[in-house]
């Protein structure tokens, strides 16, 4: 059983306050969806939890199983069991997918995986996400299509097997087949049991595959309403107008 606790989190970017007191608790076994208008601070929340250097935490706490993540470096947070699937995964020239994944798995597990075992896990992981095995030799994200990048984020999540995964618009830019494949990946991950998911999205489309337990509305840098899955349908029908007005 794991818990991610976000307590009154305030975050600024270049002296501009973006997050204004976010409170959220994600337990393993739960899936929380965060929905909100463009620019409301959803990615800021994701990056701040992961420790991106551009985002300055000006107040609040983020605890993973009682450990203050804000005290840890980016890599320490990942090794503590946090995973962030990024909205825009970066291209890293010269670093091959397989080399990168082996380094990441080694770091997170604390020991190098046996080569044959790793090769098998990688192959199975790629198969399950319909990723061509040739990608293992390609440079990380370099020249990947939007959808290919997102599949690789999920592949990384499954291989690293974190306690809590934050998925920032992993569904954006996916065609119907890719959305299904990626959703299946998320569901496999959820089915392993002791994991929590925080899923940031604009669309209810993915929520039909990945059923959330809770839906939060994010506006003006904080959570302004919380409810069950039915809230997502209401948002889709009515939009965010009532919330953006209220938070302005």
């Amino acid at each position, binding site marked *: 059983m794991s818990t991610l606790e976000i307590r009154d989190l305030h975050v600024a970017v270049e002296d501009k306050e973006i997050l204004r007191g976010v409170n959220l608790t994600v337990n393993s076994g739960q899936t929380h969806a965060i929905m909100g208008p463009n620019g409301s601070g959803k990615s800021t929340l994701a990056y701040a939890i992961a420790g991106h*250097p551009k985002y300055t935490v000006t107040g609040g706490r983020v605890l993973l199983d009682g450990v203050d993540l804000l005290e840890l470096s980016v*890599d320490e947070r*990942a090794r503590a069991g946090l995973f962030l699937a990024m909205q825009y995964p970066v291209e890293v*020239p010269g670093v091959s997918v397989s080399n990168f994944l082996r380094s*990441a798995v080694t770091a997170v597990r604390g020991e190098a995986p046996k080569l044959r075992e790793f090769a098998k896990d990688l192959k199975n992981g790629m198969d399950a996400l319909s990723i061509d095995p040739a990608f293992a030799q390609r440079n990380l994200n370099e020249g990947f299509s939007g959808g290919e990048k997102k599949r690789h984020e999920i592949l990384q999540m499954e291989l690293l097997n974190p306690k809590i995964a934050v998925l920032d618009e992993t569904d954006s830019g996916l065609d119907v087949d890719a959305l299904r494949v990626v959703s299946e990946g998320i569901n496999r991950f959820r089915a392993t049991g002791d994991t929590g998911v925080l899923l940031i999205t604009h669309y209810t489309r993915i929520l039909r595959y990945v059923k959330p337990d809770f839906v939060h509305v994010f506006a003006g840098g904080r959570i302004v309403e919380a409810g069950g899955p039915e809230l997502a349908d209401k948002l889709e029908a009515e939009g965010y107008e009532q919330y953006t007005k209220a938070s302005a």
Partner: protein
Amino acid sequence: MGLNEKPLSTLHEKSSYDLGDFDVPTGREEAWRFTPLTRLKGLHNGKAEAAGHVRLDVDAAPEVTVETVGRDDARVGKSFTPTDRVSAQAWNSFEKATVITVPREAVASKPTVLTLTGEGDGAAYGHLVVKVEPLAEAVVVLDHKGSAVYADNIEFVVGEGANLKVVSLQDWDDDAVHVSHHHAQLAKDATFRSFVVTLGGDLVRLSPSVAYTAPGGDADLSGVYFVDAGQHLEHRLLVDHSQPHCKSNVDYRGALQGDRAHAVWIGDVIIRVEAEGTDTYELNRNLILTDGARADSVPNLEILTGEVAGAGHASASGRLDDEHIFYLQARGIPHDEARRLVVRGFLGQLIEKIHVEELRERVMSAVEAELAR
């Protein structure tokens, strides 16, 4: 320009065997403006007396002949004329030259390795000729180490249809000064592959040049350098396309770390009027790992004919990308290892092209060692 006159290149027009034809550089000249002259220990102004010694050990392929000859040997100095003061100084100062010959149609069964070891104190001047006769093939490795103040000229004379691959490692001790000119001359359909690796030395200024005597020549010049605090590592390339239908490709990459680490890369390519059908590309990239390091990168592409098959250049110097490091760290990889992965990737793509496997490994681990500092 008159109707019957060919347009002339403005680059490197001056050449002479006579030291007196070159003024002592002051640092204001285009060719010298990046080089810290005071650190040349007199190689540029005639004050570096030939009192030192750079020992040469040769481990040659059995198909190859190795000779030590006097200045008057007919094979020496035929493929080039010095184009700067230090090259002319080296030409006028060496006593014995080494001539490596790969006989016609011979295929060398192993690399010929020349180890040059600087034995400290005083300057030394050298001259080497590598002559690959028609249709022959060879790999030659130059391995520079030790402590030296050394200026030399190297002639790579690649015959018709011949193939020469050269790896030149500048792995000097911290106090070494090395000014070197590599002159490659390619006959019809000759292939030349040069891989330069510069890691050690206080000041290294290496000028690889390529000249073609007939169509069909193909030159590939790659280089990797890692500049530490206080080091000045300079590479000045010149590819002179004076013949039709020849190819050249230049790719130099460097990483810089530490205070006053200074890399200079000059890439001059001339495509002369008669060189129609030329295909050339040159690239320099620098990765600046810390504050206080500086990279100067100047590509010059001078096209005097309208009939090129392809001509391009690119130069980019930048910081290690924070977003790359963040991404790798967000997957649990510690900062230092993330940095190593990115730099290793950046240089490794090129290092993989080194023609000799043991050298690939040695260069890769040298880069690792630099990164671990």
